[in-house]
């Protein structure tokens, strides 16, 4: 073999190798763009898809859909009609596993009862992101939602701005044993410890009418009561109505949670002094963003705080809060 033939062979081989290398690099760089079939599929199962009555989930959905567009992923959103339909949600998840999604984003309807199905998801090697309401244990890859302990502390701080130290205060929680309720109450308790006289916590079961009755009874029976912290939306509405109907509107300070239009109406009317609102849009958006990160093999934090905000009559109509508080109705 002459020097020239050797050179030619080398040059030809180099050319072919270069072509292969270019193709490989190109394919790698464009893996997501090449072919629609490679678009990741994310299955979202919410606590409920009854958006009309629960604007919170509508906003979560907006966030999910926005992120779906931003990160170029296919998203299917499912869920039971009611937050209490735990078995229904488990069934929906089981069916969704069969469609082999690239990731799951779940708002758990129950802290414990979803453990087995979540384990099934992990057994199928599918990344699992929980948003808003989580699953007991470390089965999910990450939890994205409000830091409820933190939110509880904010509620305590908001109350303390309006009452004198040593006043009598009651916490009105919703469902005993619910993780968010426990965390929020703990936050409030830790903040108020030693500053006020805390009554035993009352549980409204998350029903407006129960909360109303309980609050009405309290307001009537305890003239010393100066502050109420209601830990979720229906409880806040019930207490606010009771307070509005009583003659103690100015004497008792109510700090609530969440931002349904009813709650906001009471905030505008200053029946509810402050309400701690969550950021459902961010939950939905970050839920998808984190799921995409997990699909791409990135490390994510075990907990991502979407934050909470204290809303009152003064700041509720500020431009930066309007979008947070008032969903655009369609």
């Amino acid at each position, binding site marked *: 073999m002459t020097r*020239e033939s050797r*050179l030619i062979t080398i*040059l030809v081989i180099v050319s072919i190798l270069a072509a292969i290398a270019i193709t490989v690099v*190109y394919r790698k760089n464009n893996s997501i763009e090449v072919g629609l079939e490679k678009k990741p599929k994310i299955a979202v199962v919410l606590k409920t898809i009854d958006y009309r009555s629960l604007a919170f989930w509508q906003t979560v959905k907006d966030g999910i859909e926005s992120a779906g567009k931003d990160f170029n992923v296919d998203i299917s959103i499912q869920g039971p009609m009611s937050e209490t339909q735990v078995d229904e949600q488990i069934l929906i998840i089981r069916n969704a596993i069969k469609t082999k999604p690239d990731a799951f984003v779940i708002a758990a309807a129950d802290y414990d009862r979803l453990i087995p199905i979540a384990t099934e998801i992990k057994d199928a090697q599918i990344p699992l992101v929980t948003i808003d309401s989580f699953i007991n244990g470390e089965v999910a890859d990450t939890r994205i939602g409000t830091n409820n302990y933190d939110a509880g502390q904010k509620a305590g701080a908001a109350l303390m701005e309006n009452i004198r130290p040593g006043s009598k205060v009651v916490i009105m929680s919703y469902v005993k044993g619910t993780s968010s309720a426990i965390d929020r109450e703990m936050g409030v308790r830790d903040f108020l410890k030693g500053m006020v006289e805390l009554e035993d916590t009352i549980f409204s079961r998350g029903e407006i009418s129960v909360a109303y009755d309980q609050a009405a009874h309290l307001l009537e029976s305890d003239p010393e009561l100066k502050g109420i912290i209601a830990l979720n939306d229906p409880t806040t509405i019930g207490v606010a109505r009771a307070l509005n109907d009583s003659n103690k509107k100015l004497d008792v300070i109510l700090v609530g949670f969440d931002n349904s239009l009813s709650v906001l109406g009471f905030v505008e009317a200053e029946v509810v002094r402050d309400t701690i609102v969550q950021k459902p849009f961010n939950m939905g958006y970050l839920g998808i963003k984190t799921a995409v990160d997990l699909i791409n093999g990135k490390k994510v934090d075990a907990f991502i705080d979407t934050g909470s905000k204290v809303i009152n009559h003064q700041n509720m109509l500020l431009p930066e*809060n309007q979008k947070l508080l008032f969903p655009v*109705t369609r």
Partner: protein
Amino acid sequence: MKIRSLQLSIILGFAVLILLSIITIGTFTFYIFNDTLKRNSLDSSSQVVSQLNRQIDNYISNMDNISQVAISHPDVQDYVHGLSNDKNFLTSEADGESPSQAKNRVTSLFQSIISVRKDINSIMLLLDSKTLVTNNPLDQINPYADWPATTSTRTESGPFSASLSSSYVQDIIIGKYSWVITMSRDVYDFRTNQHRGVLLVDLDYSIIEGLCNSIQLGKSGYVFIINPMGEIVYHPRQQLIYSGLKEELIDKIKNIPNGQLTGEINNREVLYTTKTSEYTGWTVVGVSYLDELFYNRSEIEYYFAMIVVACFLGSVLLSYYISLKITRPLEILRRSVQAVEGGNFDIEINVNSTDEVNGLAQDFNIAIRKIKELIEQNARTYEQKRKHELKSLQAQINPHFLYNTLDSIIWMIECGESKDAITMTSTLAKFFRLGISKGGDIISVKDEIEHLSCYLTIQKMRYKDSLDYSIDVDPAIYSCRTLKLLIQPLVENAIYHGLKGQDKIGMLNVFGFRDKQDLVFKVVDNGIGMTSKELSEIFNSNSPSKGSSGIGVKNVLDRIQLYFGLDYGVSFESFKGKGTTATIRLPAIIDSEL
């Protein structure tokens, strides 16, 4: 190894040249293409943004028209006038109509407008006296809401003394929190020209949202709207912005109301296309991600790279082919030349090509043939020379001449002519000495003449009075070169064929002189001469005539031509009965060695 490096240079040269040209031209084309692509994208996003702007202007101007129609409508004017006459409108009457009836007419006017304009959320008439009239008679004023200021105190400005709000939550009606954009306009009582309040036309925000949402800029581009203060009117990710999870370069955008700018947001290059409406004062901002704008750029880059590689491959193969075409014949030629160097003249070069190298090969073939011929000729000539030399050598010791001479000497001695015998013997001795003494064939004219004179002396002594001779040679040519035994055979020839046997005295004259560049010897006799037929036969007979010195005229001619070339030789002139002149022509070469 020169040929190999020639081939290498051709291959490398070609490859590099083609590669460089492709890369240069390709890069240039690629940039132009990219630029065009970019400009097209910029143009198209400009168009999208402008179009959206026009649509929004259209909506807002509709609102403006509605508000103008509404404030000047007789129903509204009647109601406003009636109220101003009596603040307590529940009991007052205007134009024979109760204020509540007038209010109903306004309400139904508003209702009829809204029923055809689905994009209008509500129309509200707010009067100074905290009176609210809307399209819905059940609407109640939210007592906790801030009462909207009149347009005169608002900072927002628009044409026709109307003002346009940003998007916000309208909370003036109890229990309703609608996202709207409000066109507000001062309401005057035309009859008294008094300022009476404000008319609000609320455009449903979801209309703007729908318009903006329907716009697609690349895969994930979007549009947003800001007002002249830089406040967001619409943004699809408004909540993310307020949460600090997303940012827009609003401060920079504000400075470029119409145009384009690029920036980096969340590690992505972003192109902002802005267009500000003169009508609303709003700036519509199109946001496109540059990487998406050029989403097919990487594809083009890929194909470009592949073309470069393919061209490189092609150029390498082509240059290899071309170099082979050039160097293979050269290599064959070189090997042939090497073979010739080694002494092989029998090869025929066949390079199998039709180009210049083939021509060269053909010429080379011809040259080799010539060389081969010359070498063969050379060999032949040498052989002949040797033969002739041997012959001339033989001639010098020609036994007939010697016998005849010795017979003459014996005869002289017998006759007592001892003196003559001595002279003859010594002359014979000199004759032979001169003939043998120089080994080579080439001698000086002087030696040749001396030798000739010895010969003629002997012949004269033999023939006595029947022969007379003279030698007249220019001494200036003595030192010139001549061949041994050139003149003597001619003289011998003249004696035996021209003079011998005739009655009169045979006269023989030998001349030697220089004629320009030539030496000329002439042997002139007055003998019997020759016919032209005899003349032509002189050179044909190779064998000398009997009794001669053995060297024929042919031998003389051959030797002259062998040594000095065909331009020289021997010629004869003869007339029957008159005599013959033989002329030898040689080049005049002075040889210092001789």
